[in-house]
């Protein structure tokens, strides 16, 4: 998995500034992380990585790294 590309896609889904999202970031602190942002991230993971993430799985993720692990696990 290309982590840089993933971070770029997450930034796009959250309408955050390009390059503003890093692996160690807390999801709650991300620019654009709200209910619509979270659903946008679920949609991008489904579209680009073929993994269906449930809301409760996402709720268990604290950081961007947790998100990357979730995607990697599902592939």
């Amino acid at each position, binding site marked *: 998995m290309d982590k840089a590309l993933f971070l770029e896609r997450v930034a796009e*889904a959250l*309408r955050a500034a390009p390059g503003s999202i890093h692996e160690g970031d807390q999801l709650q602190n991300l620019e654009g992380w709200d*209910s*619509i942002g979270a*659903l*946008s991230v*679920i*949609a*991008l993971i489904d*579209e680009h990585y073929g993994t*269906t993430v*449930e*809301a*409760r799985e996402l*709720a268990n993720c604290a950081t961007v790294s947790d998100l990357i692990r979730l995607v990697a696990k599902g592939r």
Partner: protein
Amino acid sequence: MDMTGRAVLVTGASSGLGQATAVLLSRLGARVLLLGRNVDRLEKTRCEMAGEGHALVSFDLNESAAIPDLLGKQASEFGSFAGIVHSAGVTQTKPLRVCSAVDFEGLYRINVVAAAQLLRGATRRGVTAPEGCSAVVVGSVMSVVADTCLSAYSASKAALTGLVRAAALELARDKIRVNAVLPGHFESPMAEKNATQLLPEQIRAIEQRHPLGIGRVEDVAGAIAFLLADTARWITGSCLVVDGGYTAQ
């Protein structure tokens, strides 16, 4: 309500609302043609039905251009239809910012185009019963109100209500009534699948917006049967809200 001996086509009959509608109609005496993609699942529906003379047909409604011919063929084999129920439908919870043209087209294909082609098929000679036919499509309260992340779904269901009104006017001369039910949130496999994208607090919020609580498939199936039967002989072009009070607020 009495549907004795009447032939009714039900799409989406393999689960949820379509299945419950087929079962209810069979108890009211109808002969039901069950349409769905998976024969095994349709067979399970048939096992739950009362009476005799039901049949099933495996068909993917994404093949919308083939729908009118399908209706013609099925009417000649099963008998002309006194009722048509379009219960098959797809939903999607997705923010507009990530909704592609493909997402919109996929929802429109089943929710709108398939419904239109079913109605088109119904206009063919011999497809509907000489005494008349009632077509009922399953819409949603999301055609009259909205929520976030439901752009494609709301748009498709609103398009469906437009189709219902226009078709009702055009098909009245063919003795075909056209109506919709607009359900709120009710328990179904589709709703269950959709709920996996929601957090528990979001699910609770949806429940709280239904003064009578979340509905059951039988609540909606009953409204469909009402619109199919002679109880609704003077009703066409209507969109019957069945939502436990959701849109009363």
